[in-house]
């Protein structure tokens, strides 16, 4: 039964086909185990634990959610199945940091921060470049002038890849050759964007594992160099998390935040069977809102993150 609107029709079909059987009827089971009982018993909690853990929510966050439920139940004395569902969702939604700009949906930009500089960071292969392509498309459709900076000068054909995206979207790209200094590419991009009164600049960066200090320092440098031109740049540092990543996402968020002050998250590949539950704990612990989700490889497969819909998707039957 698909009552939640997280995915567009086609994606949802894809998703529904793929849902593992064990996930089916979770709510039903929850309902059954809570039926006629005045308190949430072990069975219910076990069931809940399984749902949350298999969604990559992680042990700590799962235990916290369960504690919150228990506290609510103790306070409200009696709780029926429907109430449990509601309470459960409320408690999890609470953990997800709300995004700062409520009407972000219109792809509006803060007027005092133009051009608005977005730097996209993350470990290898999570979907940075693809997300940039999709974002550029959204901004362009919203009537903004967009510049892309090809600052992944390391990976083979990374420049060609983002160049193809810029052509697809129809926005200018600033690039140098493979192996050149990424900071110099970023600087060039900002200066061109500034001279041309652009609205948004999106900088692609090479994937890097967060435990490599040199590479993390390179990000800090990238930032410093951009600030020579635009003192408060980058306005948005968007950390991309692969939706199928497990508990390592915590360490990713921690180290990237330490190096660059990440202030937004995007979760990709949610068109797969992975639930991306780790972002609940990440968003809560680091107080960073999730802004976007990626639901496919196509140019239009990006959505604004909606906390309720995301939480619903964890329990989707």
């Amino acid at each position, binding site marked *: 039964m698909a009552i939640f609107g997280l995915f567009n029709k086609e994606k949802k079909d*894809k*998703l529904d*086909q*793929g849902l*593992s059987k064990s996930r089916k009827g979770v709510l039903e089971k929850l309902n059954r185990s809570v039926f006629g009982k005045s308190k949430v018993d072990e069975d219910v909690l076990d069931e809940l634990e*399984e749902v949350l*853990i*298999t*969604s*990559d929510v*992680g*042990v*700590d966050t799962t235990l916290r959610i369960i504690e919150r439920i228990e506290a609510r139940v103790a306070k409200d004395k009696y709780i029926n199945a429907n109430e449990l569902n509601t309470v459960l969702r409320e408690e999890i939604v609470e953990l997800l940091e709300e995004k700062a700009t409520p009407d972000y949906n219109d792809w509006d930009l803060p007027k005092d921060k133009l051009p608005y500089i977005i730097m996209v960071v993350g*470990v*290898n*292969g*999570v*979907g940075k470049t693809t997300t940039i392509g999709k974002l550029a498309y959204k901004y362009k459709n919203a009537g903004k002038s967009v510049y892309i900076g090809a600052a992944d000068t*390391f*990976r*083979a*054909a*990374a420049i*060609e*890849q983002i*160049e*193809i*995206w810029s052509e*697809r979207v129809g926005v200018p790209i600033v690039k140098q050759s*493979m192996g050149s200094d990424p900071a110099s590419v970023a600087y060039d991009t900002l200066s061109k964007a500034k001279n041309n009164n652009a609205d948004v600049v999106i900088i692609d960066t090479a994937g890097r*594992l*967060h*435990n*490599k*200090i*040199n*590479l993390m320092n390179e990000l800090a440098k990238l930032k410093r160099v951009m600030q020579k031109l635009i003192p408060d740049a980058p306005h948005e540092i968007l950390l991309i998390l*692969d939706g*199928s*990543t*497990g*508990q*390592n*996402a*915590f*360490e990713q968020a921690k180290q990237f935040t330490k190096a660059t002050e990440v202030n937004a998250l995007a979760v990709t*590949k949610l*068109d*797969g*069977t*992975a*639930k991306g539950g*780790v972002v609940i704990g990440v968003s809560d612990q680091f107080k960073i809102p999730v802004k976007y989700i990626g639901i496919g*490889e196509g140019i239009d497969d990006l959505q604004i993150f909606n906390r309720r819909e995301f939480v619903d998707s964890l329990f989707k039957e």
Partner: protein
Amino acid sequence: MFENLSDRLEQSFRLLKGQGRITEINVAETLKDVRRALLDADVNYKTAKSFTDAVKEEALGQDVLKAVKPGEMMVKIVHDHLAKLMGDEAVDINLSGKPSVILMSGLQGSGKTTFSGKLANMLKTKRGRQALLVAGDVYRPAAIEQLKILGEQLEVPVYSEDDNKNPVQIAKNAIKYAKDYGKDVVIIDTAGRLAIDKQMMEEISAIKKAVNPNEILFVVDSMTGQDAVNTAKAFNDILDFDGVILTKLDGDTRGGAALSIKSVVNKPIKFVGTGEKMDAIDVFHPKRMADRILGMGDIVTFVERAQEQYDVEESRKLQKKIAKNQFNFDDFLKQIHQIKKMGNFKELASMIPGVGKALRNLDLDDDAFKGIEAIIYSMTPEERQNPKVLSGTRKKRIAEGSGTSIQEVNRLIKQFSETRKMMQMMTTNKNAKKMMRKMK
């Protein structure tokens, strides 16, 4: 998340000292810890459960030898069981075909293209093979170009048909090309795909049918969470693959997905990827992986490697010093030199429990130690032997002398004392050697 399962287990067993047997009651708390360690490491929920059940069965009723603490005994049982599940030593790939055809498969961004390059390079340089890379990802922007660049770097030919959108045909044509040009290994890179994408799964299954690979490899990101089982199972159901490749192990993930995948499809993990460069490939070591998942570091391997280098006498002296908390900067320097001799330090560091963690935050290039060495060389013998005397003015002098900053000097001192603390804990808590013997 706990750093070191063995320490935790030790704790939960502290109360049990004197009890001669592992019983249902005294094992419950420990198993909870084990299960939690596994879940923190991203081992699948069900896999973790059946693992702890099996361990429990094995542990119950076992006599605890007098010489062994029950905690250590449990560590051994858990470790052995996990190592057993991870499989025997590395299984090689099948290169018997003429040409041998290797087909890559996996999700988007898992590392197929990079691994294809690494494998081609390894087969060429280490085994004298004539490899051909095939650009079968016709979808992702610049995917073909990526493989071509890798091929150029490696001087391995790349077969591609830039205007052909049919990877089945491309693969078939590539085999013919390989035969015509005397290539004896064909590595087919493919587009990333979701297991639930029916059309794309049909496509790769058609490639399989068309080229009849000797080896189908499933490439998976070691940071993958709970979904690893679903994906591995779905790919295996459709492709019946021959081996698993675990990538990005140069990160700090515990890599529990390896265990989940192993237990759900029971196919060997053949190689691991340990970096973005083309030589960052290693055969799979099941024991190391078991230790990594448990967060124990690879004590066994580390010590084996270390033993090859360390002078027994020297190391006995060192052990004593550590135990007495007299380990100083001279010893630290000596160790650095030893470690440098032992080769790939990055790999080694990650094997040492506790110590590995302390050093992990350094970027461990070949000259990762340059700064450290410079700082230590700028200390007086007194300062090296008795780090306690390091005052503000001394630190300033050292920073200037070594061309570093006070912060760097402070950082080193802090790391040094943490390392020292941990080393002391290791040697006094449990005789490291004894522990190793039991872990074998």
